[in-house]
């Protein structure tokens, strides 16, 4: 591999890694508070992408369409919380997990019925799909935009968590829900805020995913959702910075397996997950994760 190809592969790794990171943040946020692995996260992503697609195909400008996509996803997030998760607040965690899987299937099949399973072309404006040439290196603008968005979201999430009253409440909830309730705080409305944040993050992730890979279908969130989940676990689930690190590691592993061993490219997912197992063997809580019972963000 010559040097420019190598550099190009680094760019490719950063591009894919930042994508995973962006989605993994949402996973980890919800988990951090509710101890719920929200398997519907990937599907909320899909909702965000589809709604944006719908809005643009009805002629709305892209910015408004994105806003529409995020709003609908947030609404879906709130609705699932109210309908599916809220009645199970005091149930064992495993019931919640199974409900989350159920919601995931429901959303996938609902969109299959509404939109059909054939992939659709996602149209994004020119300035988001441009590719810059730096000598021999081709740099899609999303490679620059996604990390900026990721950092922006990361700081905003951290700011909300550590600098606002709601954030304090969220962190308190993450420690002990019954005590927070005893203190007179409305735990349910705070959990709703968590779902609003989580769904908005998922939608943003989905829209960027659709911009980078402009083919959307109702099952688009399944594989990427799993990968982002793996990234979150790798980084230490519950840790927002860990999710970013995990995302980048996963992205680079995938790209470099293909780059270095093209014949093994078909097994790149196996490599990525093997790597995950290896890390978990030595650090069961993930890279940034501390003791599972104590770590909160």
């Amino acid at each position, binding site marked *: *591999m*010559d040097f420019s*190809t190598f550099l*190009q*592969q680094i*760019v*490719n*790794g950063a*591009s*894919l890694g930042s*994508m995973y990171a962006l989605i993994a943040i949402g996973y980890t946020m919800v988990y951090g508070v509710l101890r719920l692995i929200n398997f519907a996260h990937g599907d909320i992503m899909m909702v965000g992408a589809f709604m944006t697609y719908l809005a643009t195909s009805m002629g709305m400008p892209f910015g408004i369409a994105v806003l529409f996509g995020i709003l609908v996803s947030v609404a879906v997030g709130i609705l699932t919380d109210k309908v599916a998760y809220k009645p199970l607040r005091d149930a064992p965690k495993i019931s919640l997990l199974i409900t989350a899987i159920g919601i995931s299937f429901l959303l996938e099949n609902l969109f*299959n019925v509404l939109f*059909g*399973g*054939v*992939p*659709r*072309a996602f149209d994004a404006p020119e300035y988001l799909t441009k*590719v810059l*040439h730096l000598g021999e290196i*081709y740099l*899609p603008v999303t490679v620059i935009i996604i990390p900026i968005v990721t950092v922006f979201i990361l700081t905003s999430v951290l700011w909300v968590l550590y600098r606002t009253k709601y954030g304090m409440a969220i962190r308190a909830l993450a420690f002990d829900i019954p005590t927070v309730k005893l203190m007179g705080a409305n735990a349910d409305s705070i959990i709703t805020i968590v779902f609003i944040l989580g769904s908005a993050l998922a939608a943003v992730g989905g829209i960027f*995913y659709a911009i*980078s*890979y*402009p*083919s959307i*279908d*109702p*099952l*688009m969130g399944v*594989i*990427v959702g799993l990968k982002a989940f793996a990234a979150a676990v790798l980084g230490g689930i519950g840790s927002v910075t860990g999710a970013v690190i995990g995302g980048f590691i996963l992205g680079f592993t*995938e*790209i*470099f397996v*293909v*780059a270095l061993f*093209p*014949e*093994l*490219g*078909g*097994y*790149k*997912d196996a490599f990525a997950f093997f790597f995950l197992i290896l890390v978990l063997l030595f650090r069961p809580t993930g890279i940034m994760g501390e003791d599972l019972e104590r770590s909160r963000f």
Partner: protein
Amino acid sequence: MKKSVSIIAAAVLMSGLALAKEVKVGVVLPLTGPIAAFGQTSNDGLQIAYEQNNKLKNGDTVKLIVLDDRGDKVEAATAVKRLLDKDGVTVILGEVASGNSMAMAPVAERAKTPMITHASTNPRVTKGKKYVTRACFIDPFQGAVMAKYALDNGMKTAVVVTDAKQDYSVGLAKAFKKAYTKGGGKILKTVLINSGDKDFNAQVSTIKAANPSIIAFTGYYPEAALLVKQARAMGVNVPFIGADGVGFPELVKIGGKAAEGFMYTDHFNEAAASSPEAKAYVEAYHKKYNKTADSMGALAADAYGMILSAMNKCIDEGKASDDKECINQNLRNTKGYKGITGVINIDKNGNAVKSAVINEVKDGKFEYKTTVNP
């Protein structure tokens, strides 16, 4: 006297009506999931053929039971089981993806139920099977056509893209490589992808470094569209040649300008339809769907037609229209069936021997280039 005759006639008529059976044909297609376009267009064509003809010679009616397997191998096999156990079908029609057909074939074989796949081109689908037939050509032929077309156009170095998850792609890549190296071409590299993947930048960078004169893409359309788009965005302007898995409107819708010039082998192009069967089908298709008739639909219609023809032959032979053994015999012995996609002859392995067409994406349309005979 007259009265009794008419009574007898009425009785015969009644018994005839009462005896008119319903023969069930079970259809398994990927109507949703990543390769949903395959299943949906297959179903479109199938419905046309069904509307045109759903009665057998002796008055029996044919009923279609269509199941969706979401493009999944396990679901495909389960669907066959359900069709056999619950619905009691006489014949199975499907699937599109070779991997899925290969999951279905053993189930049909065990139940001694004839199965015909309209579009699975991997040789292993019918290999060693007594009850599996297909209405399409096989990949060694298709791969050779791809290789020859590339070589004839002066493209002597190739990178082969294989979808490691699809038996179809693995088989086709092998066939292409064999024919291409035999014809004097050189395979520079094989890069692997997985269906369902969306990021192919790593593969594109590898292809770019290898600098071939053609990229032989052996997978399906969702990956083809994204791969060609990412390749063109990274300044790889090498032509692509694919096979029957890529020729779908989604290639152009998702690939956009990047898909221009994408060449591929296929079973059918309505622009080349010359037989009365093909013309009638294309006309009915346009009338019902108001879009271009594609190869999957035409193949499905042909497979359905072959089933009906086999059933009618059984009736001629004095057997029941749902005699599985007889239908299977007649399917396997199909000779000179005048189908929409050309004249179909089934060889001793259950494979159709027929011509292929080569198309190219031009101005967002699939332009007919040439027909290659076996």
